[in-house]
């Protein structure tokens, strides 16, 4: 019995690799296993190698695994590119159609299975993926009846015959391989708890969090890896009376969202690095005019078009400092799908409470990695609207403009929205006085600039840093943000097994930087390792700048487009000792 397994299916983009992985994963998720998937794909629709690596476990995992148990290959390229991940007892299931060759430098066993031929015999070669899933079940010694429900859902609308044919294809794959496998080749998974949990990508959770957080309008432009947020909201917001507009460009998307927020609706826009670069001037407008605004940045490989379908975390500095001039801005970075849900909902509260742009930083691995998610609790979602005034307003002094930018102790001014009587004021990106009228007077400039920036002095965010810090004195503190959490957690287990005392801090409030939270953790560690998917160690630099202790801080960076594996974090950390 094993309690986890890593399975990968690969082939040419456009030949059903994604759906093969999907069917396999959904069925196992229904059985109560925890799934964690990561897709390797390219910025094209047909052709080019693609694969889907799925980890199955009886416990929640937040990382892809170091090695691989089963590789399902629809072409030789898949074998050649991926066999090195297979461990000694790994298995390759390859379509006999391409006359697969087993590489010489592996102990993995290759089984030829006529995926395509079996499927073609049963009616259509399209079902080769079902044959492959069936063959996988043979290795797992898993009854294929567990898949009937899923097959029914996916193919049911095409008629009972299609469902039956697909089940038949699975069974044929199962039967074909079953008789070739001896007992020692089987990989039996320990039984899962049978609980039905959600299986979703981070972008789903962000979209769901937006709905729960009261968002009723979105304006966005399609981009990988953020489009799923728009696609989900386009389906759901109309059910709540809301709307989504696919705009002509990224600038229209953000300025429309600003217009809607100014109007009093909770509105969002979502994009990735290139889109955020285009949105920067508008982010400055929202900062200067103190409009609430929620923006999602799902990071991908940069700069420029960079690695558009690959993992990276290199927008950090741009998100903190982007836009010319100086504005108040909040940047949060959920590290799990569950946090992506709660943090997105909370982002709308922060945006209204501090009347400034809030950027939800995600990354490709978090946004697109499909995984099993613990139940989400709507009762934990609050709606707080800060100093938004409701009801009738008193008449203003001398019937003048409403002091929308009143200088207050906490820097936050009362807010009204268009349509409210006695609330008229001006809004301009030009420096302005308390009523919004342009003013270049030095004293006013200082008062308004200070007021705006003062808002960030007391930002309250429930968990600025996720901490797993059992040691008062640690040999090592590992710091990360976004999706590196799983790889770091697994590396820590191994480091602790080696006798090292290791604390973990995952930064969730990136800006304003939670110095008070991070300082004691850094002080109490002999060494600090900052793990991040970028080339220059941006988070490490931010920590050095805000907290100090530069001599302790080590950068562990990876920027080849792939997520960190636990073994990589482990090995790099070991090298520090």
């Amino acid at each position, binding site marked *: 019995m094993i309690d986890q397994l890593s399975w990968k299916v690969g082939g040419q983009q456009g030949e059903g690799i994604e759906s093969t992985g999907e069917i396999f994963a959904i069925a196992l998720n229904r059985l109560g296993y925890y799934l964690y998937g990561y897709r390797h794909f390219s910025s094209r629709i047909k052709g080019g190698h693609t694969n889907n690596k799925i980890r199955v476990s009886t416990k929640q995992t937040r990382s892809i695994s170091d090695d691989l148990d089963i590789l399902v290959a629809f072409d030789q390229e898949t074998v050649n590119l991926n066999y090195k991940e297979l461990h000694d007892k790994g298995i390759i299931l390859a379509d006999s159609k391409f006359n697969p060759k087993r590489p010489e430098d592996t102990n993995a066993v290759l089984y030829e299975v006529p995926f395509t031929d079996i499927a073609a015999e049963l009616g259509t070669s399209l079902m080769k993926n079902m044959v492959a899933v069936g063959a996988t079940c043979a290795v797992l010694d898993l009854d294929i009846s567990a898949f009937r429900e899923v097959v029914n859902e996916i193919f049911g609308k095409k008629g009972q015959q299609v469902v039956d044919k697909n089940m038949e294809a699975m069974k044929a794959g199962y039967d074909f391989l079953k008789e070739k496998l001896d007992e020692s080749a089987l990989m039996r998974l320990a039984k899962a708890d049978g609980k039905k949990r959600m299986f979703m990508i981070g972008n789903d959770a962000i979209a769901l969090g937006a709905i729960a957080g009261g968002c009723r*309008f979105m304006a966005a432009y399609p981009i990988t890896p953020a489009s799923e947020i728009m696609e989900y909201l386009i389906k759901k917001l109309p059910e709540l009376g809301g709307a989504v507009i696919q705009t002509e460009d990224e600038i229209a998307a953000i300025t429309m969202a600003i*217009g809607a927020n100014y109007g009093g609706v909770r509105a969002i826009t979502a994009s990735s690095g290139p889109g955020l670069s285009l949105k920067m001037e508008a982010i400055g407008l929202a900062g200067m005019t103190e409009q609430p605004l929620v923006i999602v940045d799902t990071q991908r490989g940069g700069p420029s078009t960079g690695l558009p379908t690959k993992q990276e975390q290199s927008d950090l500095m741009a998100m903190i400092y982007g836009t010319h001039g100086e504005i108040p801005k909040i940047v949060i970075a959920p590290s799990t799908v569950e946090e992506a849900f709660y943090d997105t909902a909370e982002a709308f509260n922060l945006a209204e409470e501090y009347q400034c742009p809030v950027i939800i930083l995600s990354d490709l691995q978090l946004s697109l990695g499909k995984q099993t998610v613990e139940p989400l609790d709507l009762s934990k979602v609050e709606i707080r609207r800060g100093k938004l005034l409701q009801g009738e307003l008193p008449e203003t002094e001398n019937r003048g403009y409403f002091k929308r930018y009143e200088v207050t102790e906490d820097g936050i001014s009362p807010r009204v929205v268009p*349509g409210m009587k006695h609330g008229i004021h001006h809004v301009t990106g030009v420096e302005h006085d308390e009523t919004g009228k342009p003013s270049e007077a030095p004293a006013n400039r200082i008062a308004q600039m200070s007021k705006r920036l003062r808002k960030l002095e007391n930002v309250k965010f429930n968990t600025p840093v996720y901490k797993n810090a059992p040691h008062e004195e640690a040999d090592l503190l590992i710091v990360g943000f976004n999706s590196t959490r799983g790889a770091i957690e697994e590396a820590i287990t191994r480091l602790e097994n080696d006798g090292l005392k290791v604390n973990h801090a995952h930064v969730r409030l990136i800006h304003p930087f939670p110095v008070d939270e991070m300082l004691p953790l850094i002080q109490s560690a002999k060494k600090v390792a900052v793990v991040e998917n970028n080339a220059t160690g941006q988070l490490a630099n931010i920590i050095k700048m805000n907290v100090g202790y530069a001599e302790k801080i080590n950068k562990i960076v990876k920027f080849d487009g792939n997520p960190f594996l636990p073994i990589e974090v482990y090995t790099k950390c070991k090298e520090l000792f």
Partner: protein
Amino acid sequence: MATFKDFRNNVKPNWCPGCGDFSVQAAIQRAAANVGLEPENLAVISGIGCSGRISGYINSYGVHGIHGRALPLAQGLKMANRDLTVIAAGGDGDGFAIGTGHTVHAIRRNIDITYIVMDNHIYGLTKGQTSPRSDAGFKTKSTPNGSIEPPVSAMEMALTVGATFVAQSFSTDLKEMTQLIEAGIKHKGFALINVFSPCVTYNKVNTYDWYKENLVKLSDIEGYDPSDRVNAMKTLMEHNGLVTGLIYQDTERKSYQELLTGYSEKPLTEANLKLDEEYFKKLTSEFV
């Protein structure tokens, strides 16, 4: 009932004496009063440049945004609160250079707002460079040998991309301007009104006198029918775009908001932000 004086806010415009934008400001104030608006139910969203300052000179809600982006700001606001009257305003640089993309797509989208372009064929606030509406041969600081690019045919472009309301006016004709803005506000869809608003400081070619000599009133063209799109295009081309009046109106096509599926009849600003537990359960169960 508010009068046009209620739309005054006593802020002294920083426009040059004689600038055409003064009367555009007056026309907006008059039109707003004439259609029965209260100041709090109007929002003027403007771009950047001399003309962009207009939102600061009208007693109403308003945003003086960023260069070229008045239209998406205005559309977002209208989507948030469909009960508001939203007027976007800016210059020819805003509308036909940096913001051309938004102009084209706002026209196609047909959200129910009114867009007024103060067209002076020059960049005034930056002290006299060529504009996308400058005529070929026009000499400016950035075209010392005369512009070698033809101007954007703004009205023809609007017709081409599916406009449902296209009008043009001249800033000396307060009456016509006011009527067109009123008609634009009442139009169920996107209304584009281009106003020739001379820059007395930097444009010594397209002066008040020049426009008086060259503009043709559509009302002087016998039998001109603003519902005839082909004829509208033909007329514009025959007069090199120099016509005033209602050029084209399509009263049949529904606005974006009317065509949207599920879009709330009430302003979105009144939406209940708290999600129903049962609905949330339904949403999450779809992922199991």
